[in-house]
């Protein structure tokens, strides 16, 4: 390591950012908990998704398909496709954080948008590691606590339609999509997939249109020509290496 004296934990920028990110993200575990029981999953299934799946986008995708009347298989397919990016994060974090032994198994579990982003925002290797663990473990604790709260609240509210909880689900998915719509390519992908879904809903079984849209999105990502502005920060290799 190039730094003679590491900063104490108290004034560590990695930990500070990690904790702020954990607070901001953990809070909206409450909306996941409430939407999940409104979608028809039980309290314990909701708790299991937050504790074990622990990747917000996939969890919302799972309950989103279930609430639309889709089968468990479609919910699993949608959640897994949304989770693909975590494999890319895992590779990034393996290079930055370099966990060894059993820590690697724990690091994998807390590899999510927030821990990847916090670690990547630091330049010092020690702060990268501190930021990763502070964000990863911090989000886990808060996300799960607020999921429990949201699930209890959702159960107490009863009929989801009466309280506009189906409207909350629509707003939540738009809120998750919104920050990713920077630039022409993501907007084009979103528009095409929205249209494909609308066309597919009347002709395919519930839940399947989501998977069709994912396949279309993957093909759009694969076929995009190189050159121009590459918006993927992690893509360090070259086409020749493929």
């Amino acid at each position, binding site marked *: 390591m190039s730094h003679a004296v590491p900063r104490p934990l108290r004034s560590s920028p990695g930990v500070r950012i990690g904790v702020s990110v954990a607070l901001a993200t953990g809070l909206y575990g409450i909306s996941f908990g409430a939407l999940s029981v409104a979608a028809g999953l039980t309290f314990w299934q909701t708790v299991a998704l937050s504790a074990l*799946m622990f990747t917000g986008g996939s969890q919302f995708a799972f309950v989103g398909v279930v609430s639309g009347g889709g089968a468990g298989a479609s919910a699993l397919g949608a959640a897994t496709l949304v*989770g*693909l990016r975590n494999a890319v994060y895992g590779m990034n974090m393996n290079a930055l954080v370099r966990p060894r032994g059993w820590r690697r198994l724990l690091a994998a579990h807390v590899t999510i948008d927030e821990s990847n982003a916090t670690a990547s925002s630091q330049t010092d290797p020690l702060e990268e590691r501190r930021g990763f663990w502070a964000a990863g473990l911090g989000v886990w604790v808060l996300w799960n606590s607020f999921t429990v709260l949201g699930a209890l609240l959702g159960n107490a509210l009863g009929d989801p339609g009466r309280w*506009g909880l189906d409207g909350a689900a629509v707003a939540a998915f738009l809120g998750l999509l919104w920050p990713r719509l920077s630039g022409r390519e993501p907007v084009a992908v*979103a528009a095409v997939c929205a249209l494909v879904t609308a066309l597919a*809903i009347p002709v395919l079984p519930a839940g399947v249109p989501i998977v069709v849209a994912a396949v279309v999105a*993957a093909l759009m990502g694969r076929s995009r020509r190189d050159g121009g502005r590459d918006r993927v920060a992690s*893509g360090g290799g070259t086409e020749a290496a493929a």
Partner: protein
Amino acid sequence: MTMWSWVLAACALAYALKLVGYLVPGRWLDDPRVGRMAGTVTVGLLAALVVMNAFGSGQALAVDARLGALLVAAVALWLRAPFLLVVVLGAVAAGLLRLLGVP
């Protein structure tokens, strides 16, 4: 399979995806196409989930109070409202429209 089995299988797959990044040689996932596809799939799926939750009604499309929630959420996001507020506003919009008699 029961819903519990699907929940647990999906959890296991999510963990496997995270772990695979730590275990495979870096150059396997270094292909820029992999990162790009992971990005476009996430955007495409979220867009599909917006449409399904806003207009899907079993195997049919329907326009109801949820469209109000979608529009209110879009305005809130455009005004840079935080996520949690956007979700609450979506619920309030749909709830109020139903009180006014919108299906």
